[in-house]
């Protein structure tokens, strides 16, 4: 199948760039016309509104659980429901995960099985964005332009028992109505551009709170595409270990506890879209890493002074 070819190159580490971000860009602007909703994550469910207006939407995402969580927003194709998504998509993913975990099949075989088991309409699912991983007790903000429709929000990290959070219950329907909001996007002081296969970070990365814009210039033809998770890492952290952790097909991949401290980011968006997230940085070393394509070079290893 066409999927996951990218993922099988798990040993490839390309385009790894260590930079010291250069100065310039805008200041953080938190005063943009506001349309904010709150989504709370816990083990293992979301507390969220059921219906919201369309348009630029800031999501304040708080992790009130005891494990790491993120938020991914998926838009099933026309005619497919939350129920279709839960049963048609999650079951194949969970089956593949069990085959990996319990039966010891290879990741390559798992990808083949997944490709065979997923419904054809899965390839028309749009991933609209979401947060990067945040730890228990943390809060982050993202801003996305949401069009009317029915969405699924989910988290597919794994708990300590090795069960996927979404299968445990961490998925929910979110309906965006035709009713418009008056909100506008925030002004970002740091711009991230994702492409094949690099991550450009433009702005003055210094200690303090930042608003990041994330623009997806292009996605690879195969695979899920690019996103950004931001992790604070120790000076001696092996980047390959973090890359390995980001692969959910690894037995301990995306499983609590994480080997590093994540502070948010932006999940997969459609090609051409721009979204925003906030994060507070301190002095030290950070990885900006794409979950599926980080090992192909879509990442940055940044030291903030």
């Amino acid at each position, binding site marked *: 199948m066409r999927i996951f070819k990218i993922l099988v190159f798990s040993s490839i580490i390309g385009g790894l760039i260590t930079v010291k971000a250069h100065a310039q860009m805008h200041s953080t602007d938190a005063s943009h016309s506001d349309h904010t909703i709150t989504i709370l994550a816990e083990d293992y469910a979301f507390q969220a509104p059921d219906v919201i207006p369309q348009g630029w939407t800031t999501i304040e995402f708080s992790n009130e659980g*005891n494990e790491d969580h993120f938020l991914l927003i998926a838009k099933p194709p026309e005619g497919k429901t939350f*129920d279709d998504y*839960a049963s048609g998509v*999650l079951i194949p993913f969970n089956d593949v995960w069990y085959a990996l975990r319990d039966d010891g099949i290879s990741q390559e075989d798992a990808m083949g099985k997944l490709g065979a088991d997923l419904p054809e309409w899965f390839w028309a699912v749009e991933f609209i964005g979401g947060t990067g991983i945040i730890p228990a007790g943390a809060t982050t903000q993202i801003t996305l332009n949401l069009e009317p429709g029915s969405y699924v929000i989910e988290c597919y990290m794994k708990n300590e028992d090795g069960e996927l959070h979404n299968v445990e219950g961490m998925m929910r329907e979110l309906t965006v109505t035709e009713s418009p909001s008056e909100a506008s996007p925030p002004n970002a002081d740091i711009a991230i551009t994702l492409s094949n296969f690099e991550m450009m970070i433009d702005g003055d990365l210094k200690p303090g709170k930042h608003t990041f814009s994330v623009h997806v210039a292009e996605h690879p033809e195969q695979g899920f595409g690019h996103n950004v998770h931001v992790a604070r890492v120790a000076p001696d952290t092996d980047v390959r270990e973090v890359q390995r952790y980001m692969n959910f097909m690894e037995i301990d991949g995306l499983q609590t506890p994480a080997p590093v401290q994540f502070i948010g980011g932006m999940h997969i968006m459609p090609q051409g879209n721009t979204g925003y997230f906030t994060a507070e940085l301190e002095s030290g070393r950070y990885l900006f890493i794409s979950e599926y394509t980080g090992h192909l070079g879509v990442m940055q290893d940044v030291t903030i002074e």
Partner: protein
Amino acid sequence: MLKKLFFVTALILCCFAISIAQTSVAGHPVLENLSSEPGIVEVELTASQERLSLVPGVETDVYAYNGRVPGPLLEVSEGDSVIVHFKNNLPEKTTVHWHGLHLPFVMDGSPFHPVGPGETFTYAFRIHEGTAGTYWYHPHPHHRTAWQVGMGLYGGIIIRDHNDPLPDTLTERLLILSDNRFDDDGQIEFAETGSRQKRVDDMNGREGDVLFVNDEIMPELTIRSGEVQRWRIVNASGARIYRLALEGHTFTHVGSDGGLFEHPVEVDEIILSNGERAELLVYGTGEPGSSITLRDLPYDRYMPMFRPSNWEKTNDLLTLLYTDEKPVQEPFEVPETLRKIPELTLDDATETRIMRMTNGKINSRTMDMNRVDETAELGATEIWDIRNLVGMDHPFHLHGFQFQVIDRNGEPVSQRKWKDTVNVPGFESARFIVRYDNYPGLWMFHCHILDHEDQGMMGVLEVK
């Protein structure tokens, strides 16, 4: 007499004969009352391993109360003092939880008061006025409830009102619904730890493909054309939620967990979640000699990814045969008002407790016997806001105190009812109001899908 009643919490009986049911009420053998004193119901109850024929032609190893599955009926009246001499002849600890009854903490049969193998315990409590209704008893040991109930430990309770608005001339039936799963040797099957089936059972709760009404599969009951019968129904299944309908007939729904409603309600079907009870009037509107079927209609209570492939199957539960007798000419008419239920008013509520239910957890916690999750004052009136944050039903049960559901998803409910279990479907919410009368203690609240309860989807309310 009262001294005797309340002094026996640690009484150990040296001689313990199994009580043999003498009479039959509502289709069930009744626990023999050993007391001749008015207002005292004194019975013996023993849990033991037995080998019984649950499925015709097959002997199955079970756990049983007084050698029966279900256990014999405890029949009492409002105002009675009840003494239950319980003996645990099981190879493991157990308790007897008197589901829905308002009684002292130490008599609740909660996980805090296990009765060890070979030990005895005497449960003693009073039946309060206004509590007439249908209840049930079952074990409640921590982490072992689903197993023990699945093995056969459950039985019915009827509390009678001396001034029951429904006449005792109505034929009364107690239908205890359960389901079970058997292996090829006819033994009760539980999924093996680590198996895929165990994962499904952990999520859905363990359902069986063999459905029982009392101790029978598809029993045949009779009714006379024109007759009205009073059915009391208990959902004793560990996980299955029943959507009950009687083909071609409506029910008059007259009561639920804590007894009769204020007003009867005509319904086509009822949904009965785990632990819940219903009282129905069944009108024999069919022709003499005909028959109809009580059915369990499809009900989607599942997470979409764990929904069984056969969930849309209708299950037949029993056959109701019309006798050949001529129709009864003067059918009974149900009173428009059955009783007055005292109102618990929102103005009196001093606290709102929010319960966020996820799969296996309440408020992000699993049960810890050494932790008190909620604390309240004796006599206080409070609101509980039960929020189901996941995509499957979770029936929420509070021990010790009957409550009144106020609203569901913000919509007020149609009438006051006494409840001890409220089913909250996926992503929905329900609020109830409760007053902690009479009894301080550590009271459990939990999901009544027994596998969830065992996983720790349970907490402790301390009333003091």
